[in-house]
């Protein structure tokens, strides 16, 4: 399947005179794991923010499953099937892991206060379904033993897993991950990668991942999009990108491919 | 249409006077809001405090209005500093909402302390309340004359301070972007302390001016114009000192001139605060960053 799921065209965004996005255009194919790489300040997270509705672009179009979503409110983008995770995981620390998952459940009639009183059985049965799905996902992610723990007690890597689980509760077609491996212990990082692969293979979830660790990028992605200074400078298979002179030049002096230490790019 | 023009001139003058009070007070409130991220719900009480210190000096100790105003400025600046050092700074980091509640509590304490000490009766400064100076086109009361005199001195001084002095520029920088200012080497903590002195002093001045212009006042003086001060801050853009200066004048002028009979009969005077309220709601709906603020994402 090479249908295009996400199409970004001519995206522009400036902050006080500085162009964070400068005619950025790229596509993400359905069912792929696409990596978004580039030096610091290239505009990757800004692109994610614009796509997921957390930022209003100055210009450009964004199409998701054929539908234009630029400027759409962030919760509506999520409900359309495009869910993002954050660079620093934003789990609800004062709620249990299970509650974090339950909260993310889709189509809950219980979220309408009137229905809690007027249709209690419908609310209760949906709650049961959501609960079951949460249990399944927690098991898949190997977080089940922590279900009743406060999310605030989780380690960084566990929080990332929880964020992934939460995203999956929304039954997304595509998930945006922002540096999922950053600050995660190697064992958990490997698990995270494994989950991404499995979710794509078994559930057909498309992933677009911002990543600095080139080993990760090489091993898991089908396609790589390279951004620099607000625009896309190259796209292709991991091998092609690794050999591309243009890409190497963009990174020259800023970071070495195999050691994954993001340099301080201006 | 001579009478109508005269009416307009009078309203413009009144508007400029009210506007300057709002502008000067607003500068302090806006800088505090921008630097400390606290909406100071006790700000009105600083004006009240200033007005009463001025009263004690003026009516009680027979000082001139100028000396009384100066005394009010110093006293209120010190009060603001004390509140900051003793209460607000140690409790920083409790979160927006908790800090707001704390300023509400401080405001309640201040207002009722004034009620207890000075009593609820209506007071006046020792100026001839019935005198009027006829300047041909407009007429002004002694209180208004004093306010104008103060404005002519303080407003340019304030503009100079904010624009030319290192401290003034630092304050504006920190109010705009504290992180960037810190990186540029500004001692954010110290600036944050000085800004309370400034805000307090301006509030004290504003309170004295307001009391002199209004003629009669009681301890509710500050609380009643608190929302006008906030409207000024929002209109100018939170954290923008120049914005507050402009916004205060605009708000004062709009409120006064709206009652001009040349505007299809004009608004009835008693609806002026409602105009300000509608302006506030409209601002929040369509342009919450005000005239000069930056649109910040949540």
């Amino acid at each position, binding site marked *: 399947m090479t249908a295009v799921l996400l199409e970004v065209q001519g995206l522009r965004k400036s902050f006080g005179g500085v162009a964070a996005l400068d005619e950025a255009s790229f596509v993400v194919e359905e069912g792929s794991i696409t990596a978004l790489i580039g030096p610091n300040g290239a505009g990757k997270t800004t692109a994610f923010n614009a796509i997921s509705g*957390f930022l209003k672009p100055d210009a450009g179009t964004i199409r998701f499953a054929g539908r234009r979503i630029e400027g759409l409110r962030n*919760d509506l983008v999520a409900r359309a099937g495009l869910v993002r995770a954050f660079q620093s995981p934003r789990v609800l620390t004062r709620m249990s892991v299970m509650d974090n998952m339950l909260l993310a459940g889709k189509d809950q009639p219980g979220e309408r206060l009137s229905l*809690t009183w007027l249709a209690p059985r419908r609310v209760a049965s949906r709650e049961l379904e959501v609960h079951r799905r949460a249990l399944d996902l927690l098991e898949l992610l190997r977080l089940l033993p922590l279900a009743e723990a406060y999310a605030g007690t989780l380690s960084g890597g566990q929080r990332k897993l929880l964020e992934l689980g939460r995203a999956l509760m*929304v039954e997304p077609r595509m998930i945006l991950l922002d540096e999922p491996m950053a600050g995660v212990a190697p064992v958990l990082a490997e698990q995270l990668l494994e989950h991404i692969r499995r979710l794509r293979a078994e559930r057909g979830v498309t992933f677009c991942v911002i990543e600095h660790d080139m080993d990760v990028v090489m091993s898991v992605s089908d396609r790589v999009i390279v951004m620099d200074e607000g625009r896309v400078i190259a796209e292709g298979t991991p091998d092609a990108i690794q050999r591309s002179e243009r890409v190497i030049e963009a990174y020259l002096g800023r970071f070495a491919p195999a050691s994954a230490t993001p340099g301080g790019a201006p | 249409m001579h009478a109508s023009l005269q009416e307009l001139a009078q309203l413009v003058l009144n508007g400029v006077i009210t506007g300057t009070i709002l502008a000067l007070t607003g500068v302090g409130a806006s800088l505090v809001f921008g630097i400390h991220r606290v909406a100071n719900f006790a700000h009105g009480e600083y004006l009240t405090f200033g007005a009463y210190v001025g009263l004690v000096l003026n009516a009680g100790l027979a000082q001139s209005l100028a000396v009384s105003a100066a005394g009010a400025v110093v006293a209120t600046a010190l009060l603001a500093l004390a509140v900051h050092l003793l209460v607000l700074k140690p409790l920083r980091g409790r979160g927006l909402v908790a800090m707001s509640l704390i300023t509400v509590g401080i405001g309640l304490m201040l207002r009722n302390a004034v009620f*207890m000490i000075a009593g609820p009766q209506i007071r006046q400064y020792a100026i001839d309340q019935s005198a009027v100076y006829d300047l041909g086109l407009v007429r002004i009361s002694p209180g208004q004359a004093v306010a104008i005199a103060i404005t002519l001195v303080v407003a340019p001084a304030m503009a100079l301070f904010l624009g030319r002095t290192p401290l003034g520029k630092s304050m504006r920088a920190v109010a705009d972007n504290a992180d960037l200012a810190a990186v540029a080497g500004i001692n954010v903590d110290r600036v944050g302390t000085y800004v309370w002195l400034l805000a307090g002093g301006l509030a004290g001045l504003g309170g004295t001016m307001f009391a002199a212009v209004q003629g009669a006042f009681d301890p509710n003086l500050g609380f009643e114009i608190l929302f006008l001060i906030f409207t000024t801050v929002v209109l100018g853009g939170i954290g923008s000192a120049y914005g507050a200066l402009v916004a205060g004048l605009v708000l004062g002028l709009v409120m006064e001139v709206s009652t001009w009979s040349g505007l299809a009969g004009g608004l009835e005077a008693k609806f002026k605060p409602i105009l300000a309220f509608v302006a506030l709601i409209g601002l929040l709906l369509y342009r919450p960053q005000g005239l000069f603020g930056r649109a910040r994402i949540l």
Partner: protein
Amino acid sequence: MDVLNPAFWTFVAVIAGIYAILSLGLYVQFSLAGLPNFGHVAFMAVSSYTMAILVVRYAVPMPLAAGAGLVGAVLLALVLGIPTLRLRADYLAIATVAGGEIVRYLAMNLPDVTGGPVGSIGLLGPGQIALYNGDWLAFLDRFAASLSGIVGARVSRDAASAILVWCFVGVLVLALWRSERSPWGRVLKGIREDEAAVAAVGKNVFAFKLQALTLGAILAGIAGLLLAWQIGVFSPEDYQPTLTFYAYLIVILGGMNRLLAIPVGAVAFSLLYSGTRLLNFFPLSLIDSGSRAFLRLFLVGFLLVLLMAVRPEGMLGNRKELLLEK
């Protein structure tokens, strides 16, 4: 009133119940949704004035007039909430302070509409006494009569009122308790901590906040109606901004997120408040009764600062959650 007079304490019980309802409304806005509403009393004022004006001037039947009063409170909530709930929390605080001030100003300065400083008595113009709660009193008398029949002893009007109000408080507490634990309450709890995370999983944060604000406004409106009915005549003085902060004290004293503590807090507060009226001994007798009102308010402010200061960070959490704060 003499402290041993049971009628006095019955009256206090009614007022305590009304404060409980007002505070429960604030609880929904502030504790459940994290919304700083500093003009809560304005919802009370809008609903009672609307009701009184409709009854006195347009002979609208009381149930309809009461409903219209609540609609008025909702409208005010929309005017204040729609512009501000997408912005930082401070903006709501500012808008509600402004709203409270404007409502009070309108009540004072439009005598043709609201009776001015004189209050509801003046709604039919000078020289006429306007009363609106005839229907309510008749209803109370009937209710008291049937209660007397059941209990076997005479139930006074005030006692009937107290029973009615506290039954309502009980129902309200149960309803809110259940709502807190519903998916709706869960989303609000998430919003309190991190709006962006909740929006990222597809919840319309603005809509939830607006619902909480409106629900709280309706409850305040009910409290306003009950107060107006209880005291029979009201003026702008009865809806001072300080009432908002009494409600805050009640909510905070109970522990900001303990629903069940609110009725208890309301009773404690009312006892303290009424009790200070009776403190005629030295040194408090030194302060004349006029100043005592200011002293009381001064203490309210002091308590607010103290309670906020003494509560550790994580003001919206309970003890277990507190341990999570770094």
